[in-house]
């Protein structure tokens, strides 16, 4: 309790703040709805209300306060509205919906699970490509001084470049050469997850100190043996630390990559929600993306504990 108490208090405070913030943010819509239903509100016309202070509107119309948490298209949906939308789109729509599991035998494209799956598969593919390429480049950099001096400065510079700016172009270019679907998004994911892995692995492969590499030399170990028996095992903690960063970056890449193509996915869902003013839909997609990120990072953490235990290290 003493450990989780403060977290609990802060989360509860956050929810209270969320409900409170919804009052001034949604009061205008709530008053307009009430006016359409024939309830007298202060001031009487939408134009007057537009210029009025939101807090003043709240004070002038205390009777309409409960309505702000039940608007259909609120500026800030209340937590229970988001939870309802999540339940509706993750569970109800997928199972009971018109195109859900029961009626069609597959996941509904109006439900969130399908979109989360699309995003997850792009993330996983991109993460795999990025990790493999990153480890290979790191091995090359550690073994060739020319490669290190040629490539490493560019790797660092490319870290400072807002790479997602490339996303729409990559998608369009790959489309014009006939590639579409998963791969363009995965390439953006791979690009984002690539550099954390390179930087972490270069550090990790260099982690063995001079005494250890000298020991390998006295055993007449070949370069390959030094790599597989000393450098790679020694780099594992670094690898997993950078994999956690890389998988979060890969998810961002997949979501951003989905913005220009309307082929489904959480990013496409957010964009559609922002076009049609479905705020609860944006929030639900956002929360699901957050859950996805938490699950992915936790999975890497689990793999890390497993690997370190297998290797006999302190987990």
């Amino acid at each position: 309790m003493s450990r989780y108490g403060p977290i609990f208090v802060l989360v509860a405070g956050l929810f209270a703040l969320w409900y409170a913030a919804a009052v001034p943010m949604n009061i205008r819509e709530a008053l307009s709805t009430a006016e359409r239903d024939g309830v007298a509100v202060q001031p009487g016309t939408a134009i007057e209300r537009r210029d009025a202070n939101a807090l003043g509107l709240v004070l002038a119309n205390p009777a309409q306060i409960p309505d702000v948490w039940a608007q259909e298209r609120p500026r800030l949906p209340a937590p229970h509205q988001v939870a309802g939308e999540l339940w509706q789109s993750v569970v109800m729509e997928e199972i009971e919906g018109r195109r859900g599991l029961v009626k069609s035998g597959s996941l509904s494209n109006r439900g969130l699970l399908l979109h989360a799956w699309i995003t997850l598969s792009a993330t996983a593919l991109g993460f795999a490509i990025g990790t493999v390429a990153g480890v290979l480049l790191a091995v090359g950099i550690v073994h060739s001084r020319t490669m290190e001096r040629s490539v490493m400065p560019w790797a660092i510079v490319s870290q400072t470049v807002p790479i997602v700016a490339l996303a729409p172009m990559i998608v369009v270019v790959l489309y014009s050469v006939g590639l579409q679907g998963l791969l363009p998004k995965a390439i953006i994911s791979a690009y984002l997850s690539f550099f954390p892995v390179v930087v972490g692995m270069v550090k990790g492969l260099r982690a063995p100190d001079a005494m250890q590499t000298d020991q390998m030399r006295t055993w007449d170990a070949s370069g390959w043996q030094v790599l597989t028996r000393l450098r790679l095992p020694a780099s594992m903690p670094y690898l997993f630390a950078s994999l956690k960063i890389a998988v979060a970056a890969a998810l961002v890449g997949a979501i951003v990559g989905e913005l220009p193509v309307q082929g489904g996915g959480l990013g496409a869902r957010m964009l559609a929600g922002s076009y049609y003013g479905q705020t609860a839909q944006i929030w639900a997609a956002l929360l699901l993306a957050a859950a996805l990120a938490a699950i992915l990072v936790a999975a890497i953490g689990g793999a890390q504990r497993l690997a370190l235990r297998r290797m006999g290290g302190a987990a």
Partner: protein
Amino acid sequence: MSAAILALALWIGLWALNVWLATGPLSNRIWARMAVPLLFGITILILWEIAVRALQVPLVILPPPSQIGARFAASLPVLWGDFVQTILRGALSGYAIGCGAAFLTAIAVDRFVFLQRGLLPLASFMAALPIVGTAPILVMWFGFDWQSKAAVVVVMVFFPMLVNTVAGLAETSAMQRDLMKSWGASYWSGLVKLRLPAAMPFIFNGLKICTTLALIGAIVAEFFGSPTLGLGFRITTSVGQLALDMVWAAILVAALAGTGFYGLVALIERGVTFWHPSQRN
């Protein structure tokens, strides 16, 4: 065919030159160290130019570097407007507000154990989340102009900066803090004279990470709605017009801005944390 041979010969020649520069007798000269990555970059650009021309790649797939350069030079005023809108108005103001707020929060977290226990786990969780996803919501709240971009940047840079600053404030050893106490230093003078200076490498690490995040946030937020200028707007509309040379020119601006921004922060870091081992040559 001849182009392929030319490209291959160029690649081998320049790579051999690079090998010689990096491992040969001159490898420790400062200009040789600078020349190697430059040469590598130039090689890539030349190969790109040759490949695009020889294979006659259509412009809508990949324009040659020379054409991108020409487009960049020809549309400087437009790109300057985009730069001001996205980088100076959106990213920089959000960066300043976000990093400043995170810094103050970090000091509050450091002062109160309750916040340390409650806020810190939440913050490190939030730092791993795809916060870019808040962009559509914030664009809806703050409108299409630069204010919404700044808001996205604030949310994006806040948590990494907070986590780094808190880690930095924990950097001093118990002996150093005891020494301050034995001199009768108050909490604030201990903070200002010992712990903040010791935290500077971490703070600058956070500031450097946030430069990239700030640009990403500002550009991605423009994908959700923007006035008719800005780098994100330029990229999406030019992709729509299949004017890929313009897209690449806008990306060049973003890359230059990102590198320049990062370099500026790194330069300030060199001045502030001159005592740190990583700054010694």
